[in-house]
């Protein structure tokens, strides 16, 4: 391929992007015009919310329909929190709110006034990866990686819940401290689906961190 051809191809590509960009802008303007009465009513209904995300205070003025998941991803550009099913069935959107793991897709951002939120972006420190992140790498606890932020945050909380004595459906004796067995960890991680089925390595990673805690 000659230089001239390269240049021609490059121009074509640039023109292509420009065309797409113009097209998208046109689509957006059309949508905005069509929905302007709605947009006006939404301006009246917009709500303010303040919370802390990964140690930083954030304030948003948003449509009250905005889920915590969409607030994190679309308003705060924290795209580590993933949208899988958007119906609380897959766990990809799991984040930690006031020390508890939740499905951020089934919570409105405005419900979290004053809360302390930790996403996958906030788990590592200046000293390095969180032990659960390191264990997932060590044990190859993922394939495509899409569910991994949710898996890791859920796993961190599973160990906290075990330490706090929260029972599970496989806890034999409710009045004894739950065991940190593979069966317990599997049951407690059932809200996080992995389409690649990296489950054996995920469980191995969690048990490794659990073992090094004690």
């Amino acid at each position: 391929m000659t230089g001239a051809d390269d240049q021609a191809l490059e121009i074509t590509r640039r023109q292509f992007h420009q065309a797409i960009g113009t097209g998208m802008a046109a689509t957006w303007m059309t949508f905005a015009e069509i929905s302007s009465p709605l947009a006006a009513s939404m301006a009246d209904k917009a709500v303010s919310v303040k919370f802390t995300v990964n140690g930083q205070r954030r304030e948003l003025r948003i449509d009250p329909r905005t889920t915590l998941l969409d607030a994190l991803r679309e308003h705060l550009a924290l795209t580590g929190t993933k949208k899988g099913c958007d119906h609380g069935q897959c766990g990809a959107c799991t984040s930690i709110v006031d020390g508890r793991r939740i499905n951020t897709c089934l919570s409105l951002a405005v419900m979290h006034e004053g809360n302390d939120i930790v996403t996958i972006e906030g788990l590592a420190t200046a000293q390095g990866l969180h032990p659960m992140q390191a264990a997932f790498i060590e044990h190859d606890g993922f394939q495509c990686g899409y569910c991994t932020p949710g898996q890791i945050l859920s796993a961190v909380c599973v160990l906290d819940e075990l330490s706090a004595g929260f029972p599970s459906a496989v806890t034999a004796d409710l009045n004894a401290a739950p065991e940190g067995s593979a069966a317990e960890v599997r049951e407690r991680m059932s809200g996080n689906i992995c389409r690649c089925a990296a489950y054996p390595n995920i469980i191995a990673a969690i048990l490794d961190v659990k073992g090094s805690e004690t």
Partner: protein
Amino acid sequence: MKDFTYHRANSLDEAVTLLVSTPNAKLLAGGTNLLDLMKLQIETPQHLIDINHIGLDKVETLASGGLAIGALVRNADLAAHPIVKRDYGVLTRALVSGASGQLRNRATTAGNLMQRTRCPYFYGATKACNKRVPGSGCDAVNGFSTNLAVLGASASCIATHSSDMAVALRALDATIVVIGPAGERRIALSDFHRLPGDTPHVETSLDSHEIIARVELPAPIGGRQVYRKVRERASYAFATVSVALIAHVDAERVAIDKLAFGGLAAKPWRVEAAEGRGFGLPGEIAEAAASVVLDGASPTDHNKYKLDLARQALHAALIDAQEQRL
């Protein structure tokens, strides 16, 4: 999700006032069922009243020796409460068999009672459903009814109630305490959820201006407490059939003190006549009790398997009671 106006209530009184003064409003607690249904536009409230900041989040002992569970106690906290684990084990076991760890951290006691059915026809926008659109008919009655009701159904609806917690509360003789403009009212859990009849969209006896304040349990009755849930996968699925059982054990024999079933009807299903009939071997006791509980069942070709499954789940639950680590 349809557009709505958001209100944050800061007290129970304020929540009641907002509920009375705001048409087409819904209370928002954990949101794990309501927001899902709003995304699907099955629920389309014009106003949401967020009650997460009105308190009602404590578990307290009553002078009677019983327990008062605040409406906004999260399912995970209720399951892990030391008194619940010790004295009302069937409730802990039912709670932890439902949903996932993430959902239990948000879902509340009252929200769990108010959750709506998972009947696939209720979710299917192209299907007739009298719960979704009253008077539109029910495509489930002659449709795919594998996991639908075998007891208490009508020509208008064969949906089941999805809660595990409510099945345990039914076995424990719980009472729901509600607050409205006229003050407090007590509703036995047995009267709280309604059978469909010809108004399946009316699911509870809660008035539209009332709020659940707490759930009260009588003093503990002891016994071996079991919740056995049968479902299509080992975890994180709704029940096909579930059994809440409180039993006594005498050597090889067992006796049923309290028994309620989930997955069979639009409400937790309990027939008191199946209880307190003395000791026997688990197989005999299960057979006798199941025949009383399932009397009058009207299954479809798709879900008649639930009758055998209920009997066998009870048999297994009685063996669980015998083997329970104390």
